[in-house]
């Protein structure tokens, strides 16, 4: 998508990652990178997903996304275990650019400490960090 957008229903991590807590299951979160992150990276040409079952630690890198020019670490906004990865991205990694919050999601995680969400930012706060 060409225009910057930061949906209100998501939680944001300062390393430009988002988390969407599942409406029916508060321990399940979908993770991805923000509009800002994909714009800074440029066209994503490769995403090598971690395996289902991999443990994530909040604030640590759990995957890499690559543009033509560069490799970028993806930081976990929450701790937990990966229960699903977005397989569609291996054939179409540009989805991360086109739909960073929808088709471009990266992994789904079973949270090990749901209270960690309290440390994340809402959309307005995250947008404020980008302005500076």
């Amino acid at each position, binding site marked *: 998508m060409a225009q910057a957008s930061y949906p209100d229903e998501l939680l944001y991590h300062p390393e430009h990652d988002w988390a969407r807590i599942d409406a029916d299951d508060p321990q399940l979160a979908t993770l991805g990178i923000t509009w800002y992150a994909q714009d800074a990276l*440029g*066209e994503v*040409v*490769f995403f*090598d997903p971690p395996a289902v079952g991999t443990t994530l630690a909040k604030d640590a890198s759990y995957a*890499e996304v*690559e*543009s*033509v*020019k560069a*490799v970028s670490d993806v930081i976990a906004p929450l701790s937990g275990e990966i229960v699903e990865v977005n397989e569609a991205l*291996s054939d179409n990694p540009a989805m991360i650019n086109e739909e960073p919050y929808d088709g471009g999601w990266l992994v789904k995680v079973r949270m090990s400490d749901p209270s960690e969400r309290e440390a994340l930012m809402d959309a307005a706060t995250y947008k404020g960090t980008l302005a500076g």
Partner: protein
Amino acid sequence: MTTDLRRTPLFDRHVAAGAKIVDFAGWEMPVQYEGVRLEHMAVRQSCGIFDVSHMGEIETSGPGALELLQRLLSNDVSEIPLGGAQYSVLCREDGGVLDDLFTYRLDIDRFLTVTNASNHARDLAWFQQHARDFPEAEVSDGIDRWAMLAVQGPLAREFVQAISDAPLPARMSAATRRLGGAETIVCGTGYTGEDGVELLCSAQDAPGLWDEIVRRGAVPAGLGARDTLRLEVCFHLYGNDLSLERGPIEAGLGWCCKEDTRFIGAEAVRAVRSAGPAERLVAFEIDGPGIARQGNPISGGGVVTSGTLSPCLDAGIGMAYVPSAQAAVGTRLKIDVRGKMRPAVVKDKPLYRKGS
């Protein structure tokens, strides 16, 4: 933070076109406009235009100019015809590569050498230092005198011809033309593997020339596409594939070294050529997913010097120095890409060929 970055005469054009600007060798340069892939394919299929005004120029003139350049440049400068162009490397005594350069013979005793931005100051000092031994040669810095545009792709000549007062020079030739009123040195050279021209003009003429060629359909292309285009056709990038640590024979540039001209470094180059280099620069393609990058080590010895995703081949490609025993086309390599061993195959150069 205080920055002292230089801007080319086209900086405002880049900003207006929505370019992402990066610091490149001390210059604020456009890395991409719409996107690297789109710009890459425009050059392969129609026409792209690049601002390469960050590249430096050194003018060497006078009755001793040829003799000085013969001492400095690895190729046989006496073979450049009037209006011709030639590629060479600049070596130290030990054969280490200071830069790779195109030299144009503008007149019998007047040459223009184009340098890499990151090496320009060092090259100029090297030229001036050695010019002391050649009192009839005069060396002058042209970096502030010239802006440079590269117009590349199958339609490039058509677009530039339409505004030229005379036929464009052929490939590997250079001539002065008036392009829409701007006096321009038109060079039949490039860094993309496509037909096209490189244009040297004054800073004040550059924006008008840029606008005129863009208006005819050339797509502004940034340094990102410039890198993927050159790597698909295995052109060297100084600082990646060429450095002081390795010589031209290792880099596969023996074809532009004529040791009999006794250029600086000729004896070192001759020794490596006759003994055979311990390492060679090869082109490779990753077999499967993954993109190798500069600095990735190779199992059994060697290192990747350039790596990217090839938009035309849709695979990870690159160049690497490997032990000579592993340099044959078809050799299978294992590249350590940030902890994952990626299989790769040594390929013929260039990796991309027109129509493949």
